[in-house]
């Protein structure tokens, strides 16, 4: 009986929508309690702000997505190379461009400039073309594709390096991509291409012995560089970015935590500034992100955990212990680093997150309550 009632109400809703989309003559009673900015009932309901607007860096482009918005029949973007204060003045901003998406809630932008941060806002329109308010700016920096692996040697069946190419083992990693053609190792091993940044986000002097961040000129991402300037492997004695600090995985983002937030205050984690009476100082990934954003490290306030794939992008598979270029990322311990990506679970509680073991570069699934290292990433700004 319950099923029958449900079915009936769905049919009734269907009729309602068909009538509702019929046009201006409909809606006198339904709209009266709605949006106060909607002065003309015959114009339909103005759509809300598209939620969960995300931009992911792509090859000379960006992949954008957002949640569908009630009363929306189409979506429209404004993107520019500076912050968009006023959506309606889109074209007045540097490289300001309006882009009609249609009814889809995702789009791939192409032909953007790699390495250039773009600011993007999205808004919804109803079937009469009336636009709702736009989202806030999201920032994304288009890249040039994947980083190469770093591998510069060929192998046959054993573990001895052989000259490339090998007849029996042809066309290996070392023979393709950026690694074999890169000539400059000062910007990173083989095909890697990083720019070292100081605490204000300016390019660090060539003579600098320490730097705060590293901009990846291929992926467009900016990475936190860890510090151990005091020369000792002591937790918290090098400030907020101490290479020796460890954290539990914690995120309340129910769209992306597989149902389990993790552990916000473990006795096993230890980090700079910890105070048991102050939850802002806890040694979990979420609180740490907030602290780095509050500090506007390298001039940036959109620091976050890297996805598993982003964290993998800085692995240098040509070396182990650690599997990273220490000339770009000094003091990196041969330890496990968290990604922000939860591990698939067939239940409503996903208790694990993906991490990368920088001892050798492999991925690993770890309980969110474990304590591991963190290297934050930013989309630029």
């Amino acid at each position, binding site marked *: 009986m319950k099923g029958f009632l449900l079915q009936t109400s769905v049919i009734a809703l269907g009729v309602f929508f068909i009538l509702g989309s019929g046009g201006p003559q409909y809606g006198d009673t339904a709209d009266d309690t709605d949006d106060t900015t909607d002065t003309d009932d015959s114009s339909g309901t103005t759509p809300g702000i598209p939620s969960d607007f*995300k931009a*992911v*860096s*792509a*090859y*000379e*482009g960006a*992949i954008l*997505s957002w949640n569908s918005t009630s009363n929306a029949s189409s979506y429209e973007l404004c993107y520019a190379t500076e912050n968009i204060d006023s959506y309606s003045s889109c074209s007045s901003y540097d490289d300001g461009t309006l882009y009609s998406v249609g009814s*889809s809630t*995702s789009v*791939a932008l*192409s032909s953007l400039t790699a390495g250039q941060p773009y600011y993007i806002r999205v808004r919804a329109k109803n079937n009469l073309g009336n636009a709702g308010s736009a989202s806030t700016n999201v920032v994304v920096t288009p890249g*040039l*594709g*994947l*980083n*190469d*692996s770093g*591998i510069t*040697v060929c*192998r046959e*069946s*054993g*573990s001895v390096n052989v000259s490339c190419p090998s007849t*029996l*083992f*042809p*066309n*290996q*990693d070392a023979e*393709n*991509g950026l690694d074999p053609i890169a000539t400059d190792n000062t910007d990173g091993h083989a095909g890697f291409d990083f720019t070292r940044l100081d605490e204000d986000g300016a390019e660090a002097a060539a003579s600098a012995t320490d730097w705060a961040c590293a901009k990846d000129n291929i992926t467009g991402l900016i990475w936190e560089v860890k510090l151990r300037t005091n020369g000792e492997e002591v937790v918290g004695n090098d400030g907020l970015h101490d290479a020796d600090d460890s954290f539990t995985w914690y995120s309340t983002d*129910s*769209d*992306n*935590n*597989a*149902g389990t937030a993790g552990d916000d205050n473990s006795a096993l984690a230890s980090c700079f500034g910890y105070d048991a009476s102050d939850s802002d100082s806890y040694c979990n990934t979420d609180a740490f992100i907030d602290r780095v954003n509050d500090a506007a490290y390298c001039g940036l306030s959109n620091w976050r955990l890297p*996805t*598993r*794939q982003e964290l*993998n*992008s800085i*692995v240098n*598979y040509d*070396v*182990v212990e650690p599997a990273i270029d220490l000339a770009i990322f000094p003091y990196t311990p041969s330890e496990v680093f968290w990604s922000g*990506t*939860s*591990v*698939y*679970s*067939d239940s409503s509680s*996903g208790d694990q997150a*993906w991490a990368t073991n920088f001892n*050798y570069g*492999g*991925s690993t*699934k770890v309980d969110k309550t474990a304590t591991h290292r963190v290297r934050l990433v930013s989309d630029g700004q």
Partner: protein
Amino acid sequence: MKTIISIALSLGLLSGVAQAQSCNTAIEDSTPDIRFVTSGDEVKDLMTNLTWKRCAQGQVWNSATSSCVGTVLSLSWSQALSQGTGDWRLPNIKELLSIVEISCSAPAINETIFPNTPDDYFWTSSPYINNAQAWLVLFEDGNDEGGSKSNGNSVRLVKDGDS
């Protein structure tokens, strides 16, 4: 157990593919459809500018059903490296990890783009630097690990987007 299998068979659940993929909606998709531009048996990934074979080696593209049919080849590392012709080659570890769909399991891949992908180990072109193995990606869960170069594993080829 017998009953369960016969019910599953009658529903067509066990016809050829061992089990159905499942995905977790509380994890962001890592490989949404919008990333890909398909062209028959090939697909270009807009995120990486790489072009992939939609079928594993051994499978054949069926354009009528937009699927991959046939038996996936099980190849040693030497055989896997030798599969590529022209611009096609074995992907390196970062390239192969880039098409893992992290929110899904069995297989951890976008099945619209890469239909009928087995939940198996796939070879990369990357040797393990500190031992005699080479890197594999397991598409059951998307994890990576080293494997003996003489073992038989699956292969999916890639080429640079501009080639």
